[in-house]
């Protein structure tokens, strides 16, 4: 059921381009005008040297001596052509930049958004650094190609067409010779494209590895220092840098081979044309002047062909980037939002039912077996069990971070898979053990729970949770910057913020997964009291190994090896002498020391 993000989409070059352009419709917008202007630019690029050559031949070296009048007229003509060409080139450039930047921005946004739409398991199958590169440097590769390569490619094709037309005018036979020389090149280029494409795909992957390795040295800075493993980390980074370097050079060598074959063919074509042309001219089918003029045109023809082979290499680089972005966008979101089709549940007390729920992680053994559980509205439930018993999995199924492999989870009698995400997330909020904080102020982090909340709302939430004393001890109160990932705060403080954030979101069901594990006992007890007082009317489910939570709950659910083995109020279970009684005894012993 669960998938991983495709390292790279398996589409061929043309399909990738087609899909890429579909994903960035802006690339197509106004393309007709741009191509028209590009055609003018191309015509100018061919016409100007042609006029110059004609001027030289007829104006300066004419049979009747130099003709200043003709030269002046031609020069003025060329001048106009130069200005028009430059103006068109400018317009083409700007239009292309606008269209491509707009198109690639939407591609970035699409990829970014989809990354968040993917299921948690799919997200966890990918390194963060690699996820980042898919919406940053991979897209940059595409923009480089579209803006510089793309236009040159279009202009080159235009120039090839114009040069062919002019060549035909001089000598159809020699034109055929030129084209015949280039046909084998087309096959060679096709072959090289595959090779070069593969090489660039490897480069893109190495960039992902490189970012992952570097990010360890940044995110793991404290651990690296505490263990003095700078050298080892350096070695690991160096390996990634080296792999990237080798892959890049490999791609470069392959693309040079492809490019040089184009250049070689271009040069040899010139030689062949000269040979065939000489035969033709000596047989009287061609004048020497026409042969020389034709040679000039061959240059106008081969130059864009060479450029095009070069650009095709860059195209492979861009396609490699494109494939990685498309790989994200085309990865199905297997825990999908039913969207418009889905149901919107009214706010209010909430019931939760597990019906014959089993779950196995992809490729793993079943970790939950046939769970039936119903949780009444307004109740406070504690789920306890040993590490690995499956209690966190329950929480993830309940908040639809994952879907069960068998059975179903119902909220107010509706299968979670049919509930619209916006409705579900409003009603059910999970507070995980390591609640990520953003590099922003405390206020902004708490407000993440309810974006419209005012300062007073935030302060009230913290006060209601009994955290005002803690707040006043912070250097700048609500304006305190929490640092990257909240690292200016301690782990316990981060949990306080995460809890306040969820509390402010005001869901009907609050799921706490070890949400206070790093908080000191007296603060935890205070929080629990606050939540209790305020959760009246709200359902709460807490997963905890500090059993003080269980003691306070209306009902305790004991999970053991993927099954619910006991359930009931604390004071009943503790007398039963079962799994819970044992867990509690060990907990109580710790408290007494």
């Amino acid at each position, binding site marked *: 059921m669960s998938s991983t993000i495709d390292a790279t989409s398996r589409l061929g070059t043309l399909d990738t381009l087609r899909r890429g352009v579909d994903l960035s419709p802006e690339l197509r917008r106004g393309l007709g005008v741009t191509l028209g202007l590009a055609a003018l630019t191309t015509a100018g690029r061919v016409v100007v040297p042609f006029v110059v050559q004609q001027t030289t031949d007829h104006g*300066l070296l004419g049979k009747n001596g130099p003709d200043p009048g003709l030269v002046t007229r031609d020069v003025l003509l060329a001048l106009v052509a130069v200005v028009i060409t430059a103006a068109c080139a400018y317009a083409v450039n700007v239009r292309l930049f606008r269209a491509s930047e707009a198109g690639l921005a939407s591609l970035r946004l699409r990829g970014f958004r989809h990354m968040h739409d993917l299921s948690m398991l799919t997200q966890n199958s990918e390194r963060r650094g690699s996820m980042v590169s898919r919406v940053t440097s991979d897209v940059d590769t595409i923009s480089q190609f579209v803006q510089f390569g793309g236009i040159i490619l279009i202009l080159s094709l235009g120039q090839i067409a114009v040069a062919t037309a002019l060549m035909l005018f001089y000598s159809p036979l020699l034109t055929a010779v030129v084209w015949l020389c280039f046909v084998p090149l087309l096959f060679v280029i096709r072959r090289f494209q595959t090779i070069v494409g593969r090489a660039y795909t490897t480069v893109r992957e190495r960039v992902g590895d490189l970012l992952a390795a570097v990010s360890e040295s940044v995110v793991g800075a404290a651990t690296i220092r505490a263990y003095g493993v700078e050298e080892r980390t350096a070695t690991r980074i160096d390996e990634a840098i080296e792999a990237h370097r080798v892959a890049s050079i490999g791609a470069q060598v392959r693309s040079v081979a492809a490019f040089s074959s184009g250049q070689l063919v271009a040069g040899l074509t010139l030689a062949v044309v000269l040979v065939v042309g000489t035969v033709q001219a000596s047989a009287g089918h061609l004048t020497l002047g026409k042969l020389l003029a034709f040679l000039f045109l061959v240059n106008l023809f081969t130059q864009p062909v060479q450029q095009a082979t070069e650009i095709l290499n860059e195209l492979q680089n861009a396609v490699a980037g494109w494939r990685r972005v498309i790989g994200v966008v085309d990865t199905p979101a297997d825990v999908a939002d039913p969207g418009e089709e889905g149901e919107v549940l009214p706010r209010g007390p909430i019931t939760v039912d597990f019906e014959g729920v089993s779950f196995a992680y992809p490729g793993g053994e079943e970790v939950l077996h046939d769970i039936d559980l119903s949780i009444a509205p307004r109740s406070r439930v504690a789920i306890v069990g040993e590490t690995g018993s499956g209690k966190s999995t329950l929480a993830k199924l309940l908040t639809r971070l994952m879907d069960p492999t068998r059975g179903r989870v119902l909220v107010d009698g509706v299968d979670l898979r049919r509930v619209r995400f916006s409705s579900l*997330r409003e009603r059910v909020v999970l507070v995980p053990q390591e609640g990520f904080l953003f590099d922003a102020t405390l206020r902004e982090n708490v407000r993440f729970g309810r974006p419209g909340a005012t300062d007073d709302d935030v302060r009230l939430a913290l006060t209601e949770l009994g955290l005002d004393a803690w707040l006043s001890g912070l250097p700048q109160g609500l304006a305190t910057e929490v640092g990257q990932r909240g690292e200016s705060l301690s782990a316990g403080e981060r949990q306080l913020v995460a809890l306040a954030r969820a509390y402010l979101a005001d869901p009907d069901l609050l799921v706490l997964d070890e949400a206070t594990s790093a908080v000191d006992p*007296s603060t935890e007890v205070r929080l629990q009291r606050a939540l209790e007082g305020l959760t009246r009317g709200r359902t709460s489910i807490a997963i905890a190994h500090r059993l003080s939570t269980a003691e306070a709950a209306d009902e305790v659910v004991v999970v053991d090896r993927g099954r619910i083995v006991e359930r009931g109020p604390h004071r009943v279970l503790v007398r039963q002498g079962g799994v819970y009684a044992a867990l509690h005894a060990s907990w109580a012993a710790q408290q007494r020391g």
Partner: protein
Amino acid sequence: MSVDVAPSLRRSLGIVAVGIRREPRWFAFAVAGSTVYGVMTVLTAWAIGKVTREQVQPAVAAGHVSAHQLRVIFAWVAGVVLVNVVGVVIRRIAAGFTMYNVAATFRREVTRQYLRLPLSWHHRHPSGQLLSNANADVEATWNVFAPLPMALGVLIMLVAGIVQMVLVDPVMALIGLAVFPALFLANVVFQRSMSPKVSRAQQLRAEVSEVAHESFEAALIVKSMGREDEEARRFEEVTRRLQAANVAVGRTRGTFDPVIEAIPTLGTLAVLAVGARQVASGALQPAAVVQVAYLISVLAFPVRALGWVLGELPRTVVGWDRVDAVLQARGELPYGSAKLQRHGASDSRLEDVDYSYDIVDEDGVESRFQAIHGVSLEVPAGATVALVGPTGSGKSTLTNLTLRLVDPDHGTVSLDGVDLREVRRGGVSEVAALVPQQTFMFDDTVRGNIALGADFDDAQVWQALETAQATAFVRELPHGLDTRVGERGASLSGGQRQRLALARAVIRRPQVLVLDDATSAVDPSVEQAILAALRSSSDGTTVLVVAYRMSTITLADRIVYIEAGRVVDQGSHDELQERCPGYERLVTAYVREAAERAAMAADEEVTA
């Protein structure tokens, strides 16, 4: 960042020189290849002229061509082309080596800085930015090596061409040469207008990467709170700004390219116009004009190649500024030369320590916040001391100070009487180990994460895992010790990561073991087992433990109770419970709570 100072050409060339010095040999190869290419490009025209004069013309005149003549024609042209292609291959491959080698060198240097600079520096720099420095900025700096050798190689063409022009006719040459100041001027204008724009785009590129990085790291929270739309908006905001910045860059570049291309053509046209008059007045031979006009068009190409380099330079400067900011960053912890002795247990001491850190308010104004006030903390060799205090009271900061992850503003931190500032680099971690509250796992195997490259055999690893109560779950992993744990240990649970982190510490048989609430994510029974195993295996080790649980606290010989960065009291558990109300409240919270609840429940039962 020097956005408003338009970096001069000299400065950018200085940066290029820095790169060349790193790979002089490959660069020389590339320039040599390019020279061959330049010479051969000129020779192609010459060869065609030669065979036309010597073979084609006579053949056409004779109305007959021999096979020998055809062979000569083909051999000359094909020969020159072949050598030319060889030149190109050498130039491009060598340029690739230069570019990627230099980039790799600087990536190593930049990441070496990441490892060298202190934690406080890391806290001030967003990780997204640091990733961007090591990747995109290095790339932006050295991309110039792709067009550079070509531009230098064809300089030969440029010089040869100019000399020829002057030899043909100084006056005509002057008109032709007017092209170069024009190009130079265009370039100066371009650089000035381009640099701030490129700088802004590069900065925004880093910001896009920062937002993406943070947002993806927060993926679980975003999902579980249904904030995907808000995150998408946040990303869109910075993406749109990057888009606008890139379009601005494009507009400038889009102006520059056609201008650069038009200038040599304009030169050619000027030469033709003026030349035609000169010829008409008899002052000049037509052939001279043609030759000068031809030379300008030949030179247009190397000039364009130079243009590519010049167009790349603003990016080079901006990229380098960002890379160099990392390379020049100071504030390294200075190290001494003392070596800590290995023996059974160390004595750890903090004396009258103050510690503050930089804080930035919402307006970006920096100030200092004192987190630790005059703390003295003594952990005698072999003793176990528990650090107890409310959330946010400074316990983790004290553990960091103990192992010199940070230096105090005032006071001294020592091990075995040696001030940690005098200990050589890496010396502290040889004798002391920290298990932090939040564990960090490398994307490596279980074994790799525990040994961290040190030489431990399997038996030792298993023994450490045993102490950390991790043997059972590691055995069940698909490849045991060789199972890869994923990025940041993603495939493991929080409790499993904590136990591996613990094994990582105990395997080193540290003389000082600092546990910062290191078992918060494991079950009580497992924690009990861990503590028991630690006690038996770490005989004699000095232990400083941050703890909340009574079971842990009571293992300690002495308890230090802190609040708001100050030591409030210290002594045995009984003493503190007697005389320290804050401590008493904290450690008995659960018991009191349980008692109250039991009482309440009893009341309810009675009333019911």
